[in-house]
């Protein structure tokens, strides 16, 4: 039981760390604000949630201590991080930050013009 939980916890922590690394590589390499924001808000959120789940399972299964604050933190990050990404993207769009030069479609522009 302890060995299985240790493997699971190790996997979750490692997955979270690797996802965070992938997300930061995405921020460095992607061309414009929207794609970078996509990488930052999605991969980093899952990375942080994985690490927190690993921490929760570590304290629950090995130390025998249920920490509800970590669960609340998971719910909180899961709710708020996408909203933060949405708001940053929206603010960038409304201040006329250009899209990547190879973008083919901008439907929001037409919708804004029609209003």
């Amino acid at each position: 039981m302890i060995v299985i939980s240790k493997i699971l916890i190790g996997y979750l922590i490692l997955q979270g760390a690797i996802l965070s690394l992938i997300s930061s590589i995405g921020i460095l390499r992607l061309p414009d604000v929207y794609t970078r924001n996509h990488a930052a808000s999605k991969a980093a959120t899952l990375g942080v949630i994985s690490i927190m789940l690993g921490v929760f399972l570590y304290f629950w299964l090995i130390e025998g201590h249920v920490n509800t604050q970590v669960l609340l933190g998971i719910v909180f990050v899961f709710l708020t991080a996408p909203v933060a990404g949405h708001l940053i993207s929206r603010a960038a769009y409304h201040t006329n930050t250009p899209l990547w030069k190879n973008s083919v479609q901008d439907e929001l522009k037409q919708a804004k013009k029609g209003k």
Partner: protein
Amino acid sequence: MKKAGRKTNDIILQTITKIVVFIIMIFSLYLFFAGHNAPGGGFIGGLMTSSAIVLLLIAYDVKTVKKILPVNYIMMTAVGLFIAVMTGVGSFIFGVPFLTHTFGHFHLPVLGDTELATAVLFDLGVYLVVIGVTMTIIQTIGETE
């Protein structure tokens, strides 16, 4: 902080604020009550409660938040200082030095055997002062044109 009467469609922010404010409030109350035996206390609890109110101010305008929470924050600061001083003065009744705190075990109806300390009342004063001062600063800055 949004100006009153400006039309924007912040439906995602406002919907998520309605849920998240309760989580922040509950966590700040937890921090306030956990302060005796765990990290937390009046100061960080008060800062977190005021951050929940600031989130409301960001998602809605000043007028709406004033309607939701009709609190005079300067009075709140005064009440907090009064409570903090009275916990100190109250120790004179028992003939002990100023700000002497004590605790005891009580049997409460639902919670069972609970340790109640008078230091919590002092912390309540700190909590109210921190909320009052933070919200006064933020509202004063936010309302100036």
